[in-house]
């Protein structure tokens, strides 16, 4: 049971740095065309920021910010975005994840539709990776036990 750190230095510095870590993770996801990065790397950094919050502020307070139910919903949402874009391309009459056909829906030229399709897929992957990382660390931290009122 990770309890609250009764040390004010680590808590304050973590509170200052966590929003900037999340902003950097968003930069890594969005800038994947021109610099190393992408969905998986940005998702790992985003999950690491939540793990830092859990380690420094304790288990109870991290549960109020992101409970296990929310982590499950986020991971399913990420997979839904990813496969939803693929199925949309399939419905519009082409192969799975063939982004060129999206230009009929978005009303842009096919090259720009491919760029936007890849960006949407990376966002979905990032959300799913973040949720799974937090969920795995949460299960290891609690030892797999639940309290009486949670089921």
């Amino acid at each position: 049971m990770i309890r609250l750190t009764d040390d004010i230095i680590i808590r304050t510095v973590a509170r200052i740095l966590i929003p900037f870590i999340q902003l950097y993770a968003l930069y890594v996801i969005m800038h994947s065309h021109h610099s190393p990065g992408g969905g998986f790397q940005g998702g790992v950094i985003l999950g690491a920021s939540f793990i830092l919050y859990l380690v420094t502020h304790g288990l109870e307070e991290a549960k109020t910010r992101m409970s296990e139910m929310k982590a499950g919903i986020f991971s399913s949402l990420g997979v839904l975005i990813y496969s939803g874009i693929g199925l949309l391309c399939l419905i519009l009459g082409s192969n799975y994840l063939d982004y060129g056909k999206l230009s009929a829906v978005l009303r842009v030229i096919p090259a720009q539709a491919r760029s936007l399709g890849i960006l949407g897929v990376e966002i979905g992957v990032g959300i799913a990776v973040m949720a799974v990382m937090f969920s795995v660390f949460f299960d290891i931290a609690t030892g797999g036990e639940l309290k009486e009122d949670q089921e």
Partner: protein
Amino acid sequence: MTTFFIYLGMGLFTLVLLCLYRGTLGPGVLNRIAGICAIGTKTLIILLLMGFIYNRVEMFVDISMVYALLNFIGTITAAKYLEMKGEV
């Protein structure tokens, strides 16, 4: 100037090998954590120097920023776990 960076990188790599002595043979776990934190700090500078040697700085700056983040988070998590466990 490139040869100056190469010599600096080789010197830093020798320091990393010297720090590995404390990382493997430190008596107790806490000495090893301190050694690994020092190795991570030196690796950050070696990565940036490599970016300057290969003339692709924009790529290596993002990578070294991520490495600084993960070094910090890993050290705090390892120290917290050992405090919970209660032995050196």
